[in-house]
């Protein structure tokens, strides 16, 4: 009986096995190109980065020594690096709430417009499409203490001129303002998409249930239902803000007196100006860990609150 059953199964199994094998091979075949690209573009460079961060490799150097964790110890003690981390966090702390808040405000205001909406959408989105490096030059001119029109305006109003980019106290807020200007349009478009996804019925039901005005409507319906959009916007904005580089490199070069030194710029200096590739790799790893922690924290803390 058992033997007969075994014979029966062994007789029926091979074709099914072959079918499974073919399906598995086909699956691997389809997945391979993506996997290879992932390996080449992400995983291998990351592994190399990890390896370099444990060495004293310099660009063009003939011999390289393994240092273990020395690079990381050095980074912790390095005042430039510590300052750049503080500056980056200050920059993110200014850009994140304002870029998200303004993006939301503009989106809510634009959502109600009918004819002028597309005009304003384009106006606010233009900074996103522009090249930040080129625009940084324009900003540099606008903010110039004696030639720039912004200080010109301040002078006509009677306020003394402000050295936006050469006064240590003003330089980070100024860079943050430019960063916000560059980000708001993108956030606005994301929020507009989120707003369009909220059913009209809900606003009508809320109106019947006693929502009196814009604030009630916003707090009862708009804000909670924009939760998932807001989370996405916060994550992307904070990562973008964390990666601030272009404006610093073009406008201030970390100055004055290191008051605009940020993480990515510090890494760039170590790697491409001083050719300390090993040390730069260690700093990059620290940067990546920060970004990762940031995203994980936001995803886990916010995710539980925004999804319904």
């Amino acid at each position, binding site marked *: 009986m058992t033997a007969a059953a075994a014979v029966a199964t062994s007789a029926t199994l091979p074709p099914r096995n072959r079918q499974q094998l073919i399906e598995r091979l086909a699956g691997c075949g389809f997945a391979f190109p993506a996997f290879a690209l992932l390996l080449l573009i992400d995983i291998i460079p990351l592994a190399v980065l990890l390896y370099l961060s444990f060495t004293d490799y310099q660009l063009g150097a003939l011999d390289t020594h393994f240092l273990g964790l020395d690079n990381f110890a050095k980074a912790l003690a390095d005042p430039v690096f510590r300052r750049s981390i503080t500056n980056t966090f200050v920059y993110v702390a200014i850009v994140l709430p304002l870029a998200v808040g303004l993006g939301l405000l503009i989106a809510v205001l634009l959502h109600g417009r009918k004819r002028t909406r597309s005009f304003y959408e384009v106006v606010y989105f233009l900074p996103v499409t522009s090249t930040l490096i080129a625009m940084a030059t324009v900003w540099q001119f606008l903010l110039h203490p004696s030639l720039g029109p912004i200080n010109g305006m301040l002078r006509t109003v009677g306020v003394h001129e402000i050295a936006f980019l050469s006064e240590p106290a003003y330089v980070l807020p100024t860079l943050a303002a430019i960063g916000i200007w560059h980000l708001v349009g993108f956030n606005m478009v994301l929020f507009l998409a989120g707003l369009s996804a909220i*059913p009209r*019925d*809900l606003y*009508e*039901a*809320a*109106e*019947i*249930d*006693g*929502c*009196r005005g814009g*604030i*009630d409507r916003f*707090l*009862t*319906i708009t804000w*909670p*239902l924009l*939760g998932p959009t807001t989370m996405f916007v916060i994550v992307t904005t904070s990562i973008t803000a964390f990666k601030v580089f272009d404006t610093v490199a073009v406008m201030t070069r970390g100055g004055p007196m290191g008051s605009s030194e940020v993480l990515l710029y510090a890494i760039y200096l170590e790697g491409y100006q001083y050719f300390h590739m090993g040390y730069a790799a260690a700093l990059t790893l620290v940067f990546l860990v920060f970004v990762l922690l940031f995203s994980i924290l936001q995803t886990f803390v916010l995710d539980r609150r925004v999804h*319904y």
Partner: protein
Amino acid sequence: MAKVELRSVGKSFGDVPVLAGIDLDIADGEFLTLVGASGCGKSTLLRIIAGLEVQSSGSVLIDGAPVDHLRPHERRVAMVFQSYALYPHMRVFGNIALPLVMSRLGLFDRLPLLRALSLRRRRVMPEIAREVHAVAAQLQIDALLERRPSQLSGGQRQRVALGRAMVRQPAAFLMDEPLSNLDAKLRVHMRTELADLHARLGATFIYVTHDQIEAMTMSNRVAMMDNGAILQLGRPGDLYARPASVKVAQFIGTPAINLLPARVSAQHSVELFGAELPIRVPRPVGAALTLGIRPEAITPAPLGAPAAGRHVLVGRLHRSENLGAEYIVHVDLAQPASGVVICKIAADPESLVDGARDLALVFSPAACHVFDAEGHRIADAEVPNVASGVGAVSMSAVHP
């Protein structure tokens, strides 16, 4: 509880007129249904009563007072939407409690974070919770209060939407096709439940639907709308038994009424396919008429069966649909008549046909509805109490 009155309410979107001067009195505690095909303006009318849409002309009165200047929540009406419009981010409790929270707490007591400091909130919330629980118990959803709308079935969502409407004890319930998103079985069940709810609450219900069965089964009165106007307003039975126009006749009743072309004979009676029916019509001779006969008023019979006092058409069985308890029979009329007649019988029509699948369709002239060329009911058409011979005569006239 309140009566709702509409005084020549009109609405147009741009140049497109949607409602043409609607006058309607809805009594306190009445269940009134606005029924009609999509695009007839019934939902717009409901939204005007709710205050979600502003009428172009006319006035809405609730309990005798005009409410045109009032915001939706000030009109003391509650609305149930076709999509239920539950707040997806709130639990069932929050959904039902919202109207009370909105009316009893100030903005400060509702602000996120700050509300924790509100003493008023601490005092009022237990009260609200008690009322929410009472309503939930009535609808048998008290076990679901901690769920989110996405975790509920269609029928449960429907109840939550009803609960949200009931908790405010509104002057009137406005319902915009509330059963359309349910499956057929649940719809039948909820029909009974809504009717029971209406009886229990004694509140005014204004109910919009495109489904004539819902209109017929639940309402005290039905307003049949078409093209922005009310075609007929009356009790469900009236709309069925005495439709004011061809459109009403076609809309009410399933399968739809059979409409046959007829005209006024020289004797001022109805002439159908050359045969005279004993229905007197005080209209000019030769005027075109439409004769409506409901499928359930026609009895298929074997050819040559006696049909005293009744009229007979002859046709060939085209198709029959077995619904279990009854059959829907499609018959192609034979010369000199033409067209398809649908009738509803309890017996299998296959047992009635002859070799050529021909059968007789017997109906009583008293069951006929007569409409003029414009589609209006001829109210003074009358059927004299005739001797059986007349039916036989018309029968021989039509018989090939």
